[in-house]
Each structure stands twice: as C-alpha cells, then as structure tokens.
C-alpha cells in the first residue's frame, strides 16, 4: 500500500514534469531552439489562476480555463514580439533571450505588492477530498492532475494526428523548406506552437498550485522537467510525458527509501543513466532532421 501511494504521488508529480517537458519539446521540434522560460510560463499560468479565483472570485474551473487562455495568448505574443524579430540569430543567442524572458517574468511577478513575494494558496473545490480505491487513499488533487493530463494528451494527439493545422505543424517540423514550398505559413504555425506550449505550461501551473502553492519561484521546476524531456528523447512528444512520469516516480521513491537529499538529484541521476544506456532517450528518433 505504501508503495502504491508513493507511485501515485510520483505519477502525479511526473505528470507536471511531463507537461512542462512537453512544452520544451513542442517548441524545440518547431523551431530547433529551447525555451528556458517554460517554467516561468507555468508560474505565470498559476498566478493567472490565482488571480481568477481569489481576486475575480471565479469558480475554479472557469479560472483554470481563463488562465490557460491568457497564458496561451502570452506565448503567442512572446513569439511574435520577441522571438520572430531575432529569427536567424544563432541558437545560443535565442536560448539566452528565453532565459532572460524567464527572469523578466519572475521579476514582474515579485513586483506585485503583497502577492508577488508570498506563497499563495489557490483554493480548489476538491481541497481535502480523497478517492478511496480498495485500501488506497489518494488525494483528489493528485487524481485531478492525472486525469487532466490524460485528457490533455488525448486532445493534443487528436490535434496533431487528425487536424489539417496539426499535420501541417508536423510537416513543418520534419521539413521546413518543403513546408514553405507547399505554402504552409510556417511562421504563423510556430506562433501557434508557442501558444500551445504556454497553454500546456499553464495547465501544469494551475494543477500544481493546489499541491505546492503559488509563488514566484515555482517555475524552477522547469529544471527538473528539462531532464524529463531528455529522458524521453528530446523531440518526442509521448517521450516527454513518459520521461516526466519516470522522473516523478523515481523521485518519489527515492525520497522515501533513500537518505535525505537523494530526492533532489534523482532527476539528474535518471538522465545520466539514460544517456549512458540509451543516448537517444526512450523515444528518440534516429531520423535525421532536415533544415
């Protein structure tokens, strides 16, 4: 029972890692750069949710949807106003810009009087509720995290697999030049990808909020989601989620069975092992990517 409890909380934490990792991978696949502000987008999403529930008094799920929408818009605007103008610069320069954006995001939040520097509780309708499964008692917030993640993954799968825009996004990431030839608006789709990544990050933020509170530094969780993306084989969407789950579970188990401190390095140990055993990651593609 103990083990199962640990597994469940590990999985729910892993979902959060997986969702943030998904954002990394989406942007990487589309633009071949890494957005290191992914964690901060998650944090902003959580604050947007907090604003919706506490200050606008919206019901939780309405605030959830609102936060996701606002953050998605922020992602689209970031791509349009900050990244598109520096398109064609070396990749490291673009990565630096995203790191800078992360700092800006954190700075702006801490400037909000009272709220910005505090750890804030985000009220949810399922606070203190539990689900009993056999002898198992699972906190409702964990169930919600897992359920929403599953739904979101199914939704994204459907979009990428079956819609014209989703297939075009795949096409552009596989062969950008050919996508241009077909008249696919590659740049606009990249903006949309930024929107989707930001939306996914916001989902993670609002889901994480009931578990860890909302604060300006919660985006540092991105540092653990990044290894999740690597474990999954940077470039694979299912890999990002599975990588997140692996890291979440390993972390949860090592936090209980191993001496203190191991929990924090668990993610990196998993990455090291993975890089030695299977350098391409769990779902790594061997196919050479074209320009």
């Amino acid at each position, binding site marked *: 029972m103990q083990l199962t409890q640990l597994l469940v909380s590990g999985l729910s934490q892993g979902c959060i890692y997986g969702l943030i990792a998904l954002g990394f991978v989406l942007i990487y696949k589309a633009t071949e750069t890494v957005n290191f502000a992914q964690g901060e987008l998650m944090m902003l999403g959580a604050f947007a949710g907090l604003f919706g529930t506490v200050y606008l008094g919206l019901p939780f799920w309405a605030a959830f949807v609102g936060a996701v929408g606002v953050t998605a818009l922020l992602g689209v605007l970031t791509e349009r106003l900050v990244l598109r103008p520096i398109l064609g610069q070396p990749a490291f320069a673009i990565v630096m810009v995203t790191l800078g954006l992360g700092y800006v995001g954190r700075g702006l939040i801490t400037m909000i009087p009272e709220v910005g520097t505090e750890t804030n509780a985000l009220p949810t309708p399922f606070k203190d509720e539990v689900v009993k499964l056999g002898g198992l008692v699972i906190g409702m917030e964990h169930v919600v995290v897992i359920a929403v993640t599953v739904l979101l993954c199914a939704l994204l799968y459907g979009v990428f697999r079956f819609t*014209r825009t989703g*297939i*075009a996004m*795949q*096409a552009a990431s*596989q*062969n950008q*030049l*050919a*996508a*241009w*030839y*077909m*008249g*696919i*608006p590659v740049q606009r789709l990249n903006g949309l990808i930024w929107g989707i990544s930001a939306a996914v990050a916001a989902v993670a933020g609002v889901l994480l909020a009931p578990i860890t509170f909302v604060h300006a530094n919660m985006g540092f969780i991105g540092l653990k989601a990044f290894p999740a993306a690597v474990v999954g084989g940077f470039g694979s969407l299912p890999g990002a989620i599975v990588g997140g789950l692996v890291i979440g579970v390993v972390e949860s188990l090592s936090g209980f069975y191993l001496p203190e401190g191991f929990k924090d390095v668990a993610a990196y140990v998993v990455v090291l092992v993975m890089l030695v055993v299977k350098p391409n990651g769990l779902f790594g*593609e061997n*196919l050479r990517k*074209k320009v």
Partner: protein
Amino acid sequence: MSGDAILTLANVESAYGPVKAIRGVSLSVPAGSIVTVLGANGAGKSTILRTISGIIDPQKGFISFEGQPIQGLDPGQIVRRGISHVPEGREVFPLLSVHDNLMMGAYTRSDRDAVAADLETVYGYFPILRERARQEAGQLSGGQQQMLAISRALMSRPKLMLLDEPSLGLSPRLTQEIFAIVTRINRERGTTMLLVEQNAALALEVAHYGYVLEVGRIVMEDTCERLREKEDIQEFYLGMKDAGVRGERRWKKKKTWR
C-alpha cells in the same frame, strides 16, 4: 513569343547573402507549354525556380504571372495563384503518411470535395501511391518519393508547375515513366511546365522551348528542335549525358576537356 506568356521574368537577380546566383535572367513561358532550362551544376537553375516560388526574394527585376507582378510575394500567396514547385531532391515529409503528404500539397485549398477528387486523379497517375497511402513517405523508394513529390505539387491544382530535376537519381526506366506522366499532365490538363533537368536529351525531347543558363546568365534560347541541332548543345549537353559529371563544370572550360 511573349504574347500568350503565363510567366515572364525580366532581369531577375537573386543572391544567397553575398553570393550572386542569377544575374539578370529574362525568360518567358507560354501558357500550356513545357519550357526547359539547361545549365551546368551551380549555373543557378534551382535559384530561378526558388525565386519564382517566393522562397528567395529577387534583388532586382520583375516576375509576372498571368499579367500580375508576383516578385516578393510569400510562397503561400504564390501557391494560391497557381504555381507549384517540385523541389530538387524531392523533399517529402518523411514521417507523414503518403496520404498526409498529398494533403499538405493541398494546404492552401479549402474546397474539400475538389481536393478529394484531385486525390483520386493523382492516385490514377501513380497507382503505387494509393497502395502505399498509409505508409510513411520516408520509407518509399527514391522513385516513389519523386512520384509523391510530383503528386503533392499537383494537389494544389497548379496552372504552372516548376519541376527541378525530376530524374535525379532515378533509373532510366523510371525516368521515362515519370516524364510520360509529366507530358500527359501537360497535354490533358493544359498545365504549363517549367522544367530544369540534368538529362538534357530527355528535357529537349519533351519540352517545346529551351533556355541555356551559364553562371547565372541566359546565354542561348530557342525551340527545342533547333537547340537539339546546335553543335554546342550536342557537344556539351547531349554528348555528355551519360558521363554523369557532377561538380564545377562550366560551359567554356568543357571545351578544353575534350
């Protein structure tokens, strides 16, 4: 012969950064015809096609399609006007299915029923693609990928097709097969073709009119019948056709090679 031209280039210059690739190219393509551009490797043939389809913006000159200026438009607008490009080296989407590759060719269209009908038409031209519809394009053979690239370009229902070395890397038999379809499309649908080919003999056989490009400039133009008769052409393009030389070969230098 510009009276009924569907496409005209006037003094077009394009460059890759500091590298000038075409220097003042003028040509015209009559509606319904097949026009070919011959030239050595690096002469700038692909650059002409890329400039027409809006992948590269010309630095100077004018391009007009159906009487409208199109230079500087983005590729999406150019596809919508009726120009589609079969790129050099095929450039399929390797992890998408054959079917999805074809649908990407129709990305700019919203007339679903007509798209479905066109899908049937291209499957009719290349039945193998129907058999492989669910397979990833990256798993097709080179020849099948070329058929896919041509079909994908047809899916935008073009008035003008730009074909960049469709025979590249294909067996002579497959090349014949593909060219047979190309001429058939030209005849049946009246689709105008601008064809760039290494295989000059074949190009001069299927095309009506030809231009010879040398280091970014047009140095000769005539009907294909007459080009075939010319000594220079026979010597440098037709005589060399099975030597398969790739690399820096230039018009003038080649004389000394022989």
